[in-house]
């Protein structure tokens, strides 16, 4: 495995430590740009090993209510794809080591222009992309140009991705593989420990890339259980829901919001770090 780039370096370092990674998700600009930047800046110290940042979109078809609401809050507060890249630059100003992955849907990128987006994302310090509505059948849209630009394209594998299809899904995947542990949308349901363990074993037969597991991880205990068997546990909706609890009736951030989200991330990190101990 190559150790070039922040994502491989981070996974290599954690492997040496003998533990899994905690990957956290927040939507860019939720609930506003300034709060969002402060939240992101504090994540590494709170124990996030990799950071996923959602690119807000009006029609997030694969997301459940928590992340849908986060997207709409961010858009209402004026967030855009250009604003998302600005946030990444702001984060990078204080942290050059933590991998940053942008996650979202294709249309805002397509509208921005793929070549221009990749140039600007690379310059801002983006390491990887997860674009939900670009399966391998549409690889030449963004996946191949991203790889050529030196940005990882992280593919989702799901319970419906059978052994016959898995090689096609993994073919141009880089950085890590993200296993969606349920057939469903974000923030709903959870897979059993046994199902997750079997899925990770199956994926490892097909790839040497680190395997991250997400969807349905809502607590430090669930994060710990996943961290026992996978290379990373991804937590999204639970963190976004925690953020939403810190909003007032107008949807504005209250005083304790940032600290409360970081507090929750510290608990998740403790779960992940203690998992194999």
């Amino acid at each position, binding site marked *: 495995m190559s150790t070039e780039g922040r994502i491989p370096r981070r996974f290599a370092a954690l492997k040496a430590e003998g533990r899994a990674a905690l990957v956290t998700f927040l939507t860019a600009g939720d609930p506003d740009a300034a709060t969002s930047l402060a939240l992101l800046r504090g994540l590494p110290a709170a124990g996030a090993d990799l950071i996923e940042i959602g690119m807000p979109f009006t029609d997030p*078809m694969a997301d459940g209510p928590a992340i849908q609401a986060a997207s709409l809050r961010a*858009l209402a507060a004026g967030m855009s794809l250009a604003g998302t890249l600005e946030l990444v630059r702001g984060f990078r100003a204080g942290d050059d080591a933590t991998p940053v992955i942008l996650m979202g849907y294709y249309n*805002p990128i397509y*509208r921005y222009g793929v070549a221009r987006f990749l140039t600007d994302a690379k310059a801002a310090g983006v390491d990887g992309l997860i674009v939900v*509505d670009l*399966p391998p059948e549409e690889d030449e849209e963004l996946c191949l140009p991203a790889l050529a630009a030196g940005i990882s394209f992280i593919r989702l594998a799901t319970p419906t991705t059978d052994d016959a299809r898995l090689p096609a899904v993994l073919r141009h995947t880089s950085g890590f593989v993200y296993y969606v542990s349920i057939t469903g949308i974000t923030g709903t349901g959870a897979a059993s420990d046994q199902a997750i363990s079997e899925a990770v074993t199956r994926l490892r037969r097909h790839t040497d890339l680190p395997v991250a597991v997400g969807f349905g991880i809502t607590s430090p205990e669930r994060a710990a259980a996943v961290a026992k068997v996978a290379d990373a546990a991804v937590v999204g909706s639970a963190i976004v829901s925690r953020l939403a609890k810190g909003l007032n009736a107008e949807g504005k951030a209250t005083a304790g919001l940032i600290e409360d989200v970081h507090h929750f991330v510290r608990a998740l990190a403790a779960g992940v770090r203690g998992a194999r101990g």
Partner: protein
Amino acid sequence: MTQLNTYRGGPNERGHFGIYGGRFVAETLMPLILDVEKAYAAAKDDPEFIKDFRYHMTYYVGRPSALYYAKRLSEELGGAKIYFKREELNHTGAHKINNCIGQILLARRMGKTRIIAETGAGQHGVATATVCALFNLPCTIYMGEVDIERQKPNVFRMRLLGAEVKPVTSGSRTLKDAMNEALRDWVSNVSDTYYLIGTAAGPHPYPMMVRDFQAIIGEETRAQMLEAEGRLPDSLVACIGGGSNAIGLFYPFLDEPSVALIGVEAAGLGLETATKHAASMAGGAPGVLHGNRTYLLQDADGQILEGHSISAGLDYPGVGPEHAWLHDLGRVRYESATDDEALDAFKLCARTEGILPALEPSHALAYIIRAAGALPKDHLMVLGLSGRGDKDIFTVADALGTRI
């Protein structure tokens, strides 16, 4: 206009019509989409499947629908000889049933035991609930909360037919959000559920499949016109929301250069208003939504905008990918009509022909009112009369300031 040897060649094996179409869906759905494609490829060449489809078209839907010479309207407009292709006479009152019969037969072949669908005005929801009742399959219809309020009679009809109507409260609570919610349901219930999409849009193979089922409209029109006039029509006019009735009417004529094809989008309160129309080709730009690349109403950041039209069946912010392609090629000309023009057309049709057209085809008729007078009397023009207007009487009464 770009000259092609054939305009009937789309899509390619990857579901692309030029740069449009494709399969832009989450990985969870991709194996299912491939299954639907494989099952449809086998079904469409299977004589048993074709026979079954034709049987239901004849005895259940009541096809062929009439091609009717609208004499009084033609005289009133003083130009072209206008014919109506009367899809509003089909069972359930619109063209939607053609596609629903085709897809439910496919779902049964695939062994699926539950049907989901999205609906805006409720016409596709009613047609889906109807075929689900006919074939005894449970069905869930997603409908935006705003549309449920606007289309109460259709909601009641769906429930009478045994469907579960789920209000969609996310996003802008209209058709595009109903489609998002149906996709979320499908992702969560992949093994037993079939998604019965109502228009010629969505991931491949839906745009092609829906077009093929609706092409019966154009095939009949061709034969009926040859019988009535001994020649092909000179122009065909149909309204465009997602565009399934239009592509069904146009497709058999795409390679007839003498036949002009005109699609009419909803201009709402006017194309000059940024967000008060639903004309995605006249006022939108290419983008990716709901599984396909096509023209979309969107802002500079790629966020999807709400369409507006007096007709709930046209206020979708996108259009089927084959129309996007035919637009760029120049083979079909896309025009638009405003809410007010559609209302005037609705009233004129009622008064001169004794037919209440749905507000959707009233847009196509509005174009005909603008254009027909200047055309010679031997110009044969066909209106795709895609649905009946009974469902719209409350909306029309509102617009006319009448209480009923």
